[in-house]
Every structure is written in structure tokens, then in C-alpha cells.
């Protein structure tokens, strides 16, 4: 019999097991299911971008699918028109989308409160219109086909498991970057703005700059997601990067909880997998999401992860050494 700390279990052992499980997934999962998971992980990066702009900074954006598209079309163009290696294209499109979002943020965040949300709706509409009509860059309604697969150095990664590991490690890196951000002065200034903008200003936080940086970071995540999607799918269509998709990201983060990267992951996985498992019910899905979110917001506004954390804080955090039968 051992003294085992709940805190230790919840903070290290459970995530460790989860990580090991994730790494083993390609060993027992079929090609199609793995493709679903790959798309889910790419989606996770976009939902994580909402964690930054909405969860941390308190600014609701409906433009994340648009930024995702910006990253995707950038990557396709870098690789196909400029001959950039995919890894460089990934980094460049992430950076490019970040700059794009940051600059737009500077224009948008002159608007206070919910007006940014209105502006983001407009941005989403404009971006979707651009994707559909800017033939030279996006291929217009026909889209872009035959985008090469991802490769590192000379090694081309075509197989589904290979792609899984690439996307998984990028998601993992993004996850830990978010943790670092959360504990940094920049992250705190985001949260200060979220909780009370005037009070944040009185602590020396420049609203306009800080919110633009938050939107820029969310752009970087969406840009990386877009590039990964372009390499994975090999085909880009304006029909992918829609307002509907942006709304789906919001539903995912609301479900999982806006307050942590883990919440974003829970929400993303539940909805992505649900979409696959209950295909027969597809016609009812919108209804189920809508009703589910409404009930959740009334019962547990902090989402599934927020609810779990509340229980942990209440019952487990201060029972420092709980006795467990662990040999």
C-alpha cells in the first residue's frame, strides 16, 4: 500500500497514459478512422486558436475557419507556385496568417466589446468570397488540386500513420505553447482584458496591441492547421472554409470548456468522433449540438473540462495525500 497523491495522478500519470495511448493509436486503428483522427487534430489547432482569442482574451471570433483557409491556400501556393519545401511552407503560412490576423486585429480592435464579433462575421464572409472568386490564388470555385504531401527533408510523408505523427506532434507542441502562454506575462494580460478591460489598462496593458497579438497568435494556429490540412487532403475547396465551420469550432470549445487547452481537446474529440459514429443521425446533428450546448451552458457554463476542474478543486485538491491501494 502506498501513499498516492491525487494531484500527482491527475497532473502527470493520467496525461502520461493518454499520451502513450495516443502514440499507440496508429497501431490498432484503420486507415479511415485514422484519417478522421487526423482531421480532428487539425480541427483541434483551430479550436485551440479560439482558446487564445475567446478563452484567454475574451473576444469571440467567427472568422477562425477563414483564417484556417488563409493558411491552407498560402501553403498550397508556397509549395506549388514558389516551390517551397512543405516544412517551410508550413512555417511560412503559419507566420503569414499570424501577420494577417495581427494587422486586421489592429483595425478591428478599435471596436470595443462585441463589435469585434460582428467584424469577424464580416471577415469570414469576405474571406469565403475571396476563396471562391480569386481564381489566380485559390483556384476559384474549382479549388486547388494535387497539392503534394508533407515532407521533412527529402522524406515524403504520404501514409496516414505518418501524417498522424506529424500532426500529433504539432498539436502537442501547440498544447504546451499554450501552457507556456498561460503562465506568461502576455497570457496574463490577455486574461486581464477578458476579465475587465479597464482594470487591465490600469495595470499597464495596452488593449489594442494585446488583443491584436492574441488574434495574431490565433492566426498562427489556424495558419498551421490550414497548411497541414492542405498537405493531408491534397485538395482545397472554398466549400471547406465556411461560416458553418467557424460555428462548429465555437460549439466544440463551448462543449469542452473555453478555459483550457484540454477543454478544447475534449470538445474537439467528442464532436469530431460523434460526427463519424452517428452518421445515420446526421440530419439531427445540428439539433443535438444546439440543444446540447444550450443545456450545457445552463448547467455548466465552463464546459465539460470546467465542470471536471470544479469537482477536482472542490473535493481532491486539498486532500493532499489520499490513501490509495496502488502497488
Amino acid at each position, binding site marked *: 500500500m502506498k501513499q498516492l497523491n491525487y494531484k500527482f495522478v491527475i497532473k502527470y500519470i493520467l496525461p502520461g497514459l493518454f499520451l502513450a495511448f495516443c502514440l499507440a493509436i496508429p497501431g490498432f486503428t484503420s486507415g479511415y478512422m485514422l484519417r478522421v483522427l487526423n482531421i480532428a487534430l487539425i480541427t483541434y489547432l483551430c479550436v485551440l486558436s479560439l482558446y487564445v482569442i475567446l478563452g484567454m482574451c475574451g473576444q469571440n471570433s467567427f472568422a477562425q475557419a477563414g483564417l484556417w483557409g488563409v493558411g491552407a491556400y498560402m501553403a498550397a501556393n508556397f509549395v506549388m507556385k514558389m516551390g517551397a519545401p512543405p516544412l517551410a511552407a508550413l512555417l511560412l503560412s503559419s507566420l503569414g496568417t499570424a501577420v494577417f490576423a495581427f494587422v486586421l486585429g489592429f483595425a478591428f480592435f478599435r471596436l470595443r466589446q462585441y463589435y469585434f464579433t460582428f467584424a469577424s462575421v464580416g471577415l469570414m464572409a469576405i474571406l469565403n468570397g475571396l476563396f471562391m472568386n480569386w481564381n489566380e490564388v485559390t483556384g476559384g470555385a474549382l479549388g486547388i488540386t494535387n497539392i503534394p504531401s508533407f515532407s521533412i527533408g527529402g522524406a515524403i510523408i504520404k501514409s496516414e500513420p505518418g501524417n498522424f505523427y506529424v500532426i500529433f506532434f504539432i498539436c502537442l507542441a501547440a498544447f504546451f505553447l499554450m501552457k507556456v502562454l498561460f*503562465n506568461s*506575462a502576455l497570457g*496574463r*494580460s490577455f*486574461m*486581464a482584458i477578458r*476579465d*475587465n478591460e*479597464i*482594470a487591465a*489598462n*490600469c*495595470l*499597464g*496593458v*495596452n*488593449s489594442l496591441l494585446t488583443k491584436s497579438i492574441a488574434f495574431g497568435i490565433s492566426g498562427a494556429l489556424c495558419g498551421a492547421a490550414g497548411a497541414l490540412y492542405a498537405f493531408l487532403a491534397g485538395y482545397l475547396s472554398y466549400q471547406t472554409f465556411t461560416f458553418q465551420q467557424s460555428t462548429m469550432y465555437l460549439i466544440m470549445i463551448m462543449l469542452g470548456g473555453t*478555459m483550457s487547452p484540454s477543454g478544447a481537446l475534449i470538445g474537439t474529440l467528442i464532436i469530431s468522433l460523434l460526427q463519424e459514429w452517428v452518421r445515420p443521425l446526421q440530419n439531427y446533428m445540428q439539433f443535438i449540438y444546439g440543444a446540447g450546448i444550450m443545456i450545457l451552458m445552463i448547467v455548466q457554463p465552463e464546459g465539460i473540462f470546467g465542470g471536471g476542474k470544479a469537482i477536482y*478543486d472542490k473535493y481532491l485538491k486539498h486532500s493532499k495525500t489520499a490513501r490509495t491501494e496502488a502497488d
Partner: protein
Amino acid sequence: MTSISNTQKQPVLKLINVCKRFGGVVAANEISFELYAGEIFGLIGPNGSGKTTLINLITGIYSVDSGSIVLDGKNIVRMPIHNRARVGIVRTFQHPRLLGRCDIRANISLGKDLADKRKIPDTDKYQERMGVLLEAAGLTNVDLSDSIEKLSYGQQKMLEIVRALLSKPKVLLLDEPAAGLNRKEMSYIINLIDFAVKEDICVLLIEHAMDLVMSICQRLTVLNFGQQIASGIPSEIQENPAVIKAYLGGSRNAEN
């Protein structure tokens, strides 16, 4: 006496004929006063007399209609809120405005973040300073990883002052720090104000607890309907007939 010695020093913060109107309401009419380093300056008056408005004008939340606010010889009326904080004007709010969904440590760290933005050099002494401040505030027994909601209202107010002091401000504006606190908590507030004075910070104190104001403030100014009806040392103010009529008389009767 203090005011005589003060005249030899340069004021840190100086308000010159500051005016502010909201529609037909005059919230501040030709307000002028000076704050010196290490001084506790009281700002009193009935509710709605324009005290908080004045703090909002100094921190830049409202812009002045006319007049100037001078910090260290520089007029800051056109400076945005965050830059005023960065040059050393830090405030607390009547109701503490903390990061409600973060732990206590993150909340305190915001003060350190401001110190970094202010390019205060001795950041390596931050831990020590934080320890001293938390002790002065009676917060030594709290778990810094706890959520802010675990703190009582009084502790939250204390934490807000600790956070403000960690940024090493030049001017600390306290908006009713003792409101809603018990005697024990009041003594912590006094500890924290003492700490500020030792660091040569000038403290502007808005407060309705007259015993506190009269015992710790060196000078006072009294507002009524946005007008400065009296200024001076506490004993003068207590005798001033205009002040007794507008404010003190009422509150004394209420207390007795």
C-alpha cells in the same frame, strides 16, 4: 507643519484646474492639488461628490475637459490609460477587480508584470518584496494556487493593493480601501499604506471611515458636487464649518 516642509520639495503629482462635466453635471470644477512623495493625501466628500471621477481622470479612464495633470513635471492629460500606469500611476477599485477565474499567484504576478513594463530594475528582490507585502496584508496563510474566489472580500481588496504596490508605483490611488472591512482587516490596510509611505510612494486615499482618514492623512481636500470646498491638515478640516455642513456633520451624527 507638513505642508511647510512640503513646499521645499517638488510635487510628484499636480492637478491644475481640472474640470470635467457629464452633460449638465459638473463632476470636477477647477480641482487643484499637489501630492508629494511619501505623503498620504485624503480625498473626502459625500457620495456623488466626484471623488471616484477624479481618480478616473487621473488614471485616464475619463479625459479631462480642461486643466492639466502633471506627473514629475510632465503633463499627462493626453496619455492613454496603460501608459499612465507605466509611468507609475496605479489604482485600486471600490470593488476589487481581479482575475476571477485565475489563481492568486497569477493575480499577484500582474503587479510584477507592470513593474517589468515600468522597467523597474530590482526584480530579483521580487519574491522577498512579495513576502513582506503578503505578510503586511495578512495573507501569509493563503495557498497561492487557490482560486481567487476562495478569498474573502476583504482579502481580495488587500490583494489588489499588494498587486498595485508590487509594481512600485509613484502614485497609489486607493478608492475606498476600507469600505466593507472589519477592524482587523483595516489594520492590514494601514500596514500596506505604511509600506507605501516607506517606499516614498504618494498615496491618494478616498475613504468614508473618518477615524482612519483623520489619523493617517497628512493633508486633505474635501469635495462637494465637484467643488473643492476645503483643503488643509485634518485638524483644520474638522473645524471647517463648510465641511461640517456638507459632510462631516452628517456622518458624525450617523456614527454616534
